[in-house]
């Protein structure tokens, strides 16, 4: 999913047995792990924000079960939230680019 923006590129070349090659390989491992952890943090944050917002929107009167209407609302809310995330993301990046063009 593009949303989680992993920036890992494919490991380059074949691993050689020289010290330089080992370093290269280890570096790749470290970088992959960092990207992975940040992607997890990003996904966790998204899940928590969606849960908060959609709980607020959809569960107005908590009953003993999640009823069909609430279930549908949660699905729609989730979809709407992700779309909103993408809109905000695009708008924010556009704004950052405008700002940095102005500052130059």
């Amino acid at each position, binding site marked *: 999913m593009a949303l989680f923006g992993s920036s890992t590129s494919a490991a380059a070349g074949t691993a050689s047995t020289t010290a330089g090659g080992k370093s290269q390989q280890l*570096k790749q491992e470290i970088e992959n792990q960092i990207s992975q952890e*940040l992607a997890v943090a*990003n996904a966790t944050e998204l899940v928590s924000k969606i849960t908060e917002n959609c709980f607020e929107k959809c569960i107005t009167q908590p009953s003993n079960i999640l009823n069909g209407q609430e279930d549908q609302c949660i699905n*729609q809310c989730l979809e709407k939230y992700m*779309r909103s995330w993408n809109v905000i993301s695009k*708008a924010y990046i556009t704004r950052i680019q405008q700002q940095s063009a102005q500052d130059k």
Partner: protein
Amino acid sequence: MSSISASALQNLDESSRKDIMQFIEAEQSKSKVQMSIHNFTDMCFKKCNANRPITNGNLSSSEEQCLTNCLNRFLDTNIKVVQALQGQQ
């Protein structure tokens, strides 16, 4: 995901260390931007859906406009506040 052993880290050469530091810095700034987007989405989703129920999963063009406006006006507000505090109005 396997964890990386401490002894293996000592075998890293100088240029790899430098690369990793640069990588971390880049990932950090990416992460900052992402966290801001999370906060803005949270705020603007609330604002643009206030007082009305969710009836579908799509974004209408007016909803999209609301979100974009919400973000831009928030950032304008932020700039105004900073300028006012700097006494440069």
